[in-house]
């Protein structure tokens, strides 16, 4: 969770994935979405912002080749996996338009194979990445790792359902504390509400009640 401003508006820290960590340097990749991320983007070299983390869990390590499904900036959650398991991932990466497929070249170099779609067809195939995934899966049973907006994750969930595929999704929910104290960031699971910041953000996809 990163502080985005110095006054009380915006008030709360914002949750981000740790994109990369090398020695004392931690990198984040984010999309400017609303006023918090806009303010964050105004930070100058040398500015000090408060941060807490790492928080919550992360994707379990895949034991073999795997499928990574990224929707837009959801790629941020998958990058550490792609880097750690080079050339093992079939990466399905969709976004609304060309320049929202951030770091596409870097991603390409890390993946075994990459499939891309955009809603407007400005690059890659036109359409939804989940449709491409669905075609690809057929009888394959590789584990699936998915990060992106809720509607995409729900489609992934539908696709893998009942096929005996191991599948993990990294969820996003509004957060206040980030440490499991406020119960603000819950997602409904088969065993009741769970906190995205503490028991998540990664959940076995079949546990989630949509």
């Amino acid at each position, binding site marked *: 969770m990163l502080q985005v401003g110095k006054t009380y508006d915006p008030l709360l820290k914002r949750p981000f994935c740790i994109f990369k960590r090398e020695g004392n340097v931690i990198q984040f990749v984010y999309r400017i979405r609303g006023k918090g991320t806009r303010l964050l983007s105004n930070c100058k070299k040398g500015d000090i912002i408060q941060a807490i983390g790492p928080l919550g869990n992360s994707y379990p390590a895949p034991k073999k080749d795997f499928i990574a499904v990224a929707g837009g900036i959801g790629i941020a959650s998958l990058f550490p996996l792609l880097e750690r398991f080079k050339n093992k991932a079939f990466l399905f990466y969709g976004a609304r338009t060309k320049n929202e497929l951030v770091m596409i070249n870097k991603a390409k170099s890390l993946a075994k194979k990459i499939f891309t779609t955009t809603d407007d067809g400005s690059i890659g195939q036109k359409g939804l990445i989940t449709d491409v995934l669905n075609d690809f899966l057929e009888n394959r049973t590789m584990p699936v790792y998915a990060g992106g907006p809720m509607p995409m994750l729900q489609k992934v969930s539908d696709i893998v359902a009942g096929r005996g595929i191991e599948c993990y999704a990294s969820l996003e*929910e509004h957060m*206040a*504390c980030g*440490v499991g*104290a*406020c*119960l*603000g960031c819950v997602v409904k699971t088969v065993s009741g509400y769970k906190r995205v910041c503490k028991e998540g953000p990664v959940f076995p996809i079949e546990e989630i009640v949509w």
Partner: protein
Amino acid sequence: MELTVNIGRLKLKNPVMTASGTFGYGEEYSEFVDLNKLGAIVVKGLSITPREGNPAPRIIETPAGMLNAIGLQNIGVKTFIKEKLPFLKKFKIPVIVNFFGDSIEEYVKAAEGLSKADGVDALEMNISCPNKQAGWIVFGTDPKVAFEVVNAVRKATDLTLIVKLSPNVTDIALMAKVAEDAGADAVSLINTITGMAIDIRTRRPKLANITGGLSGPAIKPIAVRMVYEAYRAVNIPIIGMGGIMNSEDAIEFMIAGATAVAVGTANFVNPSVTLDIIKGIESFMGKGGIMDVKNLVGGLRC
């Protein structure tokens, strides 16, 4: 320098505590805060039986504030005593347990259950909860009903009893007086102020629960005013809260009449803010030659 204050039979080593629902059951923040340094810890509100709470989204940021509609999710009195209290007992600070019910009976049962447990030092009853019997009208907004429920709990427990008042009332001084008359050892205020936010594109409420409770710096001026009004109405100590972000805010509440303060939303912004506030109060006292923190209480000059 004297930092201790008394709330009922509790002696706090300093006037800074955590606000219920913003500090979990203590454990969650123990990585960031040496709990032993706090005046007291107030845990998330408990009911006699566990509650699932509301669907998401439960939280929405607002200008200088936030709305929450957690829906009083909690593990219930029994599980709390079994699973959370042992951790809290390890610390040398008072554990204040916040609780609620949706009927007088449930309040009494929760109070009784908690009073029997070893390690609970005081009770804070949240009366900002809808009353099943009275058509889901909030206990804390009707003076008669408030008296009744506080009085019933008073009879059910020997522990120090703090009544947490709802700010959604016309006359907070009256409600404070009612709590005092019904046997409360202290009042705490303010709980969150009911608010809502709408997504204009979907035309749906931003919170799944439609309305939620507003907290944070946005409400501080209202909270300080209510503490000031309550202070002139009652003789029992007041625990002040609502938008406290730093030691200056805490001192402002004390000058308005609070014997102790509770820090809520600020924990989310800075997880070790409670310790900063304690240090800040000490340094303010040092600079101002204030020997006893109690000298700040109600020190407003009009």
